[in-house]
């Protein structure tokens, strides 16, 4: 139960990426705040598709810009040689635009958290597998038909039978010896 709760919390946390994606529209806003190569000034258009709802937005994220000339590198009203808007877009990388963190820090934290969860799950899996094996052994020792146990028993009975027949062989030879008055013959 505890694990199920934790897993559902983890899944909820990753689904939170959807709301983060909404905040990623900063890149679109940046592209609409400058001038591009084909004469757009403040209306160059979006780089990414604009999400209409939170649910599933991270999954449906895609680049919709097809003409690289539509990247608004220049500042508003400036010529094509200017790069101030491109600089503003590049500076998004160092701004806390996703959940109060920079994009690379957010991704780094996501990797770390996800990796930690995977590692934790692997450890728990190993521990629980060991526990299951132990419990199965205990149960089998009490009730189940264990093939190894049966094989062991079979071996044991076989050896007992062999031992018993060995006794008979010896007795047989003793009786033969007695009947023949100590003379070893082929008659049993």
């Amino acid at each position: 139960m505890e694990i199920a709760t934790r897993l559902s919390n983890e899944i909820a946390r990753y689904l939170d990426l959807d709301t983060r994606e909404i905040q990623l529209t900063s890149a679109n806003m940046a592209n609409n705040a400058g001038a591009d190569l084909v004469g757009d000034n403040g209306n160059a258009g979006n780089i990414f598709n604009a999400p209409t709802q939170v649910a599933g937005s991270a999954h449906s994220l895609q680049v919709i810009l097809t003409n690289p000339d539509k990247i608004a590198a220049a500042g508003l009203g400036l010529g094509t040689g200017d790069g101030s808007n491109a600089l503003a877009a590049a500076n998004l990388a160092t701004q806390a635009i996703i959940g109060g963190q920079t994009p690379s820090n957010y991704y780094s934290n996501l990797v770390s958290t996800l990796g930690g969860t995977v590692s934790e799950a692997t450890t728990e899996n190993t521990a629980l597998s060991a526990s299951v094996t132990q419990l199965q052994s205990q149960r089998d020792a009490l009730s189940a038909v264990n093939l190894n146990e049966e094989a062991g028993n079979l071996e044991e009975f076989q050896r007992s039978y062999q031992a018993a027949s060995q006794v008979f062989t010896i007795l047989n030879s003793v009786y033969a010896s007695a009947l023949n008055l100590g003379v070893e013959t082929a008659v049993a």
Partner: protein
Amino acid sequence: MRVDPFYVVNLSSALDQTQATQQQLSQELSSGRRFSAIGDDPVAAAQNVQLLNQIQRDDSFTQINSLTQGLLQVTDSALGSVVTQLNQAVSLATQANNGTLNSSDLKAISNQLAGVRDEVLSLANTTYQGQYVFGGSQTGTTPFTLNNATTPATVTYNGDANVNTLVSPNGQSIQLNLPGDQIFTSATANVLATLNNLIADYASGGAGSGVADTAALSTALNFVGQQRVTIDNSINRLSAASGAATEEATQLTVAQTNLVQADIASVSTQLALTQSQQTALINVISALGQGSLFDHLQA
């Protein structure tokens, strides 16, 4: 005597464990990496993300560096040619002003100065990769256009006064251009207007205000020389910034290698140990599988 009835199961599971360890170690040895999934070392994986990010930024800057160096070199070279042309113009004007030349000689000098003016105008409209170098941010528009209908002829600047900059990964802002109006049509030292004035002065066969205009041209010549220093500085700063970015990328790559690289000696030792354990386990299993206590009794 009690015999563990599950010894085969227990031994098999121990063998499974050593095999899993062996597989993991072999993978580390063949790939040279300490981890192949983020779950193996979450902290190192997160650090790797940060390092990769910074290395990519440095690499991007190094890649555009050669393109930008080209732009600055072309600008510097154009300004150097402008200085040469202006020196020639000053020389011609000085010759015209010494009072020994006749009317047709002065007209010839006027024509030669027009040639110099056209050359300077062409240099002012220099392009690099299809973009005008001296147009401010208006790199798609011809910066200077000449109107010969007036006397003296007039030159119009179609660019703007914007200074384009490149920002290095460590935040250093490097100037990439000199706006054309700052060099060729400045209010204090208007190169093209002074040349046009000189051409008009001598075109009529007289000296006109040639002496004053020649002095103005000398001032303009010095001014262009001074402006050129800005571009030379940018070239030096860009080289330094590019060197720093390359150096940083190299250091970060070393750090990244150290982070993800498997310690081959340690992994090899562990692998040998695991293989010994495995061999021992297999021997135990085979020893237990064959024969019985009676075999040992008979012996």
